[in-house]
């Protein structure tokens, strides 16, 4: 499905978006605050399968990518929203319960929050662990962690 069609669906639901067809497939960029409405609209249009949510540190902000698919037509759509560091995007679990774990993971590993999540606990790491998927957190060897640098 061309990205423009997706943008039309979203526009019909009152969500403005910027479509583009990339190597990845149909990519639609929109405001973070509208992502729940956008996904609800896509679900109603037959995008019944939620594949993934993950965040990327672009160096200036966190870019969240939502990957959904219409199983019957085999159409993949990537929704991209940008949230500032320690910013927030609404939880989309009411449309796609599959996102529950992924939102918890993105929250702790990238330091963003998802208001509306029913169980916003940490998932993979313990309390006090850095949001280490951010580029500012460096990968260190075990020796470096054990022996603080002089």
């Amino acid at each position, binding site marked *: 499905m061309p990205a423009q069609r997706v943008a039309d669906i979203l526009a019909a639901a009152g969500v403005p978006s910027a479509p583009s067809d990339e190597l990845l497939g149909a990519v639609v960029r929109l405001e973070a605050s509208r992502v729940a409405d956008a996904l609800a609209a896509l679900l109603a249009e037959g995008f019944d399968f939620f594949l993934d949510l993950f965040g990327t540190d672009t160096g200036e902000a966190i870019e969240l990518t939502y990957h959904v698919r219409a199983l019957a037509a*085999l159409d993949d759509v990537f929704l991209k929203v940008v949230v500032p560091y320690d910013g927030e995007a609404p939880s989309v679990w009411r449309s796609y319960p599959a996102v529950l774990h992924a939102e918890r993971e993105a929250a702790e590993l990238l330091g963003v929050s998802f208001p509306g999540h029913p169980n916003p606990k940490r998932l*993979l790491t313990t309390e006090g662990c850095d949001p280490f998927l951010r580029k500012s957190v460096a990968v260190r060897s075990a020796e470096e962690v054990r022996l603080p640098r002089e």
Partner: protein
Amino acid sequence: MTGVQSILPEGTQPTPMLPKGLKRVPSGVDQLATEHLILNVGPQHPSTHGVLHMLVELDGEEVIAAEADIGFLHRGIEKLAESRRYHQMGTILDRADYVSGFHTETAFALATEKLAEIEVPRKASWIRSLVMELNRCASHYVWLGPVGMDAGAMAPFLYLMREREMILDVLEAISGSRMMFNYVRPGGVVRDLPAGIDAPLRAWLAIADKYLGETEDLLGGNEIFRARMKGVGVIAPETALAFGMSGACLRSSGIDFDLRKARPYCAYGEIDFDVPLGTVGDAFDRYKVRVEEIHQSVRIVRQLLDGMPEGEHTSKVAKALRPPAGEVYAAVESPRGELGIHLISDGGPTPYRLRLRSPAYYNLGVADELLAGGLIADMIVSLGSLDIVLGEIDR
């Protein structure tokens, strides 16, 4: 359920004001006061298939609510991948899904090839399909045995180890390793199939269906096993979709979706095989679907072996691969479901971001929905029937 109160700490109900002079609400004597039991299943427990921690709220033996607590095997593979070159990636990706390493490797190779526009020789694609199908069988064996053990049957597990050993020997001859293969690289595979691999493979093909039939008699043919699996852990098609389940879990709910058919990759477009489907979506359907998948994999391996093309096993790829900036998604049908690699490159020698779309991670999301209402014994069987691999869930 009157008189039952949870000892969960989340007391969100505000205490109402009491009339003056009263210490408590005069609600009478609770004649049958019961308490719920919070049970920590795992991370050290024989049946959590790794280091899964299940928090379970019990009323007697009945599960009221369940929560999967994961992360005990979290090694930050996605972060580590950002400091590895493309040809080094197999080493850490093997350790994500340690039961079927070839699938993760291939998903990554497909993504890199798409990004860097690398041609893959036909033979390399066929070898990839061959090793992936062998790996699928090995993975399903190591699912089928433990699910029998979850139900209390010890013997099938050790019977299946015998067949798995034959496959692992073949995979070792091909890749040099039994589990951490690091064999599929962008551009092709590391080396050609060794001479004389035909004999041990055909030896396995000759017995695979027969021996699996024995196991089916021991498990699926056993009245107790059927009583334990049928009607237990039912996942309706809409529930499976809502939780983004894929692979055999999705197909056993009756939804016909297999990436090998839907978006053929490697050699699957040229191979003839069936996709088994379930009807009810209970644990027994998942058992049947996976057993049939092994039979189909045997069929696929036979075809791949008969039609193995001649030619190069890899194309020329620079050691220090620098794909152009861009973003791709490539996925394979792993034994657990759709295993996707989402790769973002900024043109550098290492990926800018690598996201592993782990099928078992999403399949496990259904845990609370699946387990509530069952008994402890059902919980063990239902969880086992999902085929979770904690290495892949925690990454």
